[in-house]
């Protein structure tokens, strides 16, 4: 199997994630889509690492995972807190920063 296919898969996953972030309103789903984009990026990194024959890309992928884990913790905490106070997980309801 040609190694480019991994890159195509990565591009498809990233696009799905990006479209999801833009079109979905549920904060949890948006969040999941962001994770999808991050993992698509990870897949590209690992693939490029393989193509170049070095480990750099894989190392960065590990960093991304760690950061993504932290981000999940903080992001979910925020979503839960907003849900508690507003009884809504819709991100369009959290638009108070416009002024």
């Amino acid at each position, binding site marked *: 199997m040609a190694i480019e296919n991994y890159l195509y898969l990565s591009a498809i996953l990233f696009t799905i994630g990006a479209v999801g972030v833009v079109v979905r309103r549920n904060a949890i789903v948006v969040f999941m889509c962001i994770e999808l984009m991050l993992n698509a990026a990870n897949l590209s990194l690992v693939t490029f690492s393989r193509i170049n024959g070095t480990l750099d890309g894989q190392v960065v992928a590990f960093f991304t995972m760690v950061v993504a884990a932290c981000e999940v913790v903080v992001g979910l905490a925020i979503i839960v807190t907003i849900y508690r106070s507003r009884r809504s997980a819709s991100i*369009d309801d959290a638009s108070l920063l416009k002024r």
Partner: protein
Amino acid sequence: MTMVTNNGLVYLIALPLFGAVSLLLLGRRADKWGHLLATALSAGSFAVGLFQLSEMLGRATESRPVTQKLFTWISVGSFNVDASLLLDQLSICFVLLITGVGTLIHIYSISYMSHDPDRRRFFAYLNLFIAAMLLLVLGDSYLNLYVGWEGVGLASYLLIGFWNQKAAYATASKKAFVMNRIGDMGLSFAIMIAFASLGTVSFSGVEEYAHHASEATMTAIGIMLLIAAVGKSAQFPLQAWLGDAMAGPTPVSALIHAATMVTAGVYLIVRSNFVFDAAPNAQLLVAIIGAITLIFGALIGTAKDDIKKALAASTMSQIGYMILGAGLGPAGYAFAIMHLLTHGFFKAGMFLGAGSVMHGMNDEVNMRKYGALRKFMPITFITFGLGYLAIIGVPPFAGFYSKDMLIETALNAGGIKGILLGGTALLGAGITAFYMTRVMILTFTSPKRWDDNQHPHESPILMWLPMAILAIGSVTSGFLLSRGDALKHWLEPLFEEHGEHTELLPPIVVSGLALTMVAIGVAIAVVKYQLSDVDSIAPEDVSVFTRIARRDLLQDDINEALFMRPGQALTSALVKVDESVVDGAVRGIGQMAMGSGSALRQTQTGFVRSYAMLILVGAAVLIAAIWVVTQ
């Protein structure tokens, strides 16, 4: 020739400067004794001056000038200016006049200003003036002179506006300062031209180059120096400030605006004789300015009812004589200085007399409200009268010698120039006799015109003693200075030899002509004011000439029409430009930022998804751009 060094010169300036600084710094603590300290320091400076004179007399003619280097002031590459003092035959005359008359006026002021709560400040300024004026005449370069020149301008400003709680007085001081600045600008230009073209600003340096430099350079320097002299000495066309300067206390008018500061222009021209001797056109201009001013001032003097303003007009006119003399070249320098010295005595004496009259008349200055004061103020009458005889030039009083010499030198200047200048000087003598007699008659000998609530009385001894001493000077100084051409020979080493001596008329005829003019002037004044009644209110139905003379020959109207109103129009136009163009640009930038901000604010909806969309589109555009560029 290396000059003798003398380390005592600095005390001449240091003593009054110390007085000024300490009186100003000590403030109210010095109120009780400040005037005594100031007077003592001024007298001390006079004593130093006398000592220097005695030393100078003891030396041979060529080694009489002495110098003292105080410190290196400017040292840039090959350009060096030391703060140095130079005392020669010319400066010693001024030093003794300034400190001598200055001390007398200090003494007079102790009494004259005794009721003023700010007497200490007054004396501090007087001392400051003495110090600055001494620096002016002792500086050995134009740059050192300039410091003193500005210093006396400052002191004059402070003293004219001494009673600045009155708005008119404050305005008068500002007027004097602003008009003086025009002259000061001339002096600074002269220094710049000298530096740029000759590379030196010291008197000896400029003198050395005077013959080698082109006549055009010397003419430029000469005209700039003349502008400086015209400003400081209230000569045409910068004469308008002197009349208003009478707002200052009378001793100030006597010291600064009669005897010393206003004669600084004459000093400058005589000191720069080498410049003017190398620039005949500039020299002729000096003489013409002097001749115009001597008539100009005399005409104003005939119409003034304010005793101080009449004397101020007379000062202007007499300085015109000196400037005329200084413009006649080597033949006239000594006589210009001689008239300056005798004028210092009699005009200061008359101003102090006017102050004494005002003191006895509740500060009334209108001569039409005087009259018959001879009986009430005999000492003032006698001292003022001696000054009067001196100024109109009756022999053997001082003015006769000095003014006669000037008229004679002007007549002998040769050709049409001599006849015109000499004729003007003769005419001026006649007008001088007329207006001074008018002052005498209106004040002292005509019937009384004052109210019964006035109680004229003679002034205390501290006031009349200086007047008496100055009156003695007015009587004797002309005779002493001209006996055997004493002053002429004394100053001779400083000036170039003058060539052939032409004589248009024999001296005795000139004297006769001058005395005839004086007699005519006196006779007209006697007929007009002594033998006929004088109104206590100035008559309104007078000829247009009188009206013009009362308005100072329209000097203020002309200045306002030519300079003040166009200047105001220019400034208000500039204000408009500032408001529309400069402020407009600044406000425009602000408004642009605000407008674009509020336009961009529309994109900030607060919806996370639209932000995400923007980021996505932005990233896509960025990648596309990179792709296009790298293809």
